[in-house]
């Protein structure tokens, strides 16, 4: 069974703090993703990584950075948290699919509900 774990289920931080969200997967997947999910807006991709030290911006990368030093671990960093970053953050992983337009099944972690005060 694929397992994706996230470091915290709930997190409360203050405006301006640096926030680290960590994600670990145990299936040797090449791809890892960070999404945020807000009511009425659905899942929005923040960043995507397809290999160690490789990353691509998603739809809403502003205010976020990522780090992937090991294949199984993908971190999301909020350099200076703001109240508009209060959200549910979801990490996912999948196998790499070659051929251009494919995308394999994604396996999600339980999510981190971040509140920025």
């Amino acid at each position: 069974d694929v397992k994706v774990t996230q470091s915290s289920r709930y997190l409360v931080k203050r405006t301006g703090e640096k926030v680290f969200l960590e994600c670990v997967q145990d299936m040797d997947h090449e791809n890892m993703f960070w999404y945020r999910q807000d009511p009425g807006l659905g899942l929005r991709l923040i960043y995507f990584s397809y290999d160690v030290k490789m990353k691509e911006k998603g739809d809403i990368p502003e205010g976020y950075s990522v780090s992937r030093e090991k294949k199984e671990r993908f971190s999301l960093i909020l350099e200076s948290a703001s109240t508009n970053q209060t959200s549910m953050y979801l990490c996912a992983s999948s196998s790499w699919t070659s051929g251009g337009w494919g995308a394999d099944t994604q396996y999600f972690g339980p999510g981190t509900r971040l509140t920025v005060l």
Partner: protein
Amino acid sequence: SQKIEQNSEALNIQEGKTATLTCNYTNYSPAYLQWYRQDPGRGPVFLLLIRENEKEKRKERLKVTFDTTLKQSLFHITASQPADSATYLCALPYGNNRLAFGKGNQVVVIP
């Protein structure tokens, strides 16, 4: 622009009936489409994948159809149970290993 549309209104359905959800898309040409289930406060869980050359796919009480001409997928839950209450999301591949997700359609099964 690319768009995936799912009904934003919750579907309330009596236990034992069939729930049918719709996923419409524009400006995509997906080779396949995926369906996920999401419970409140949890991450989505993969349910089914249907390819463009498959008209129908079944898994237990779930059935999915895929019409590339209409650019539509239908998701059916037969003999629905209260435990089926959740939000269901469709997802399409859109390049370089990424999936685009619909906003989801909530199902509430009434005992």
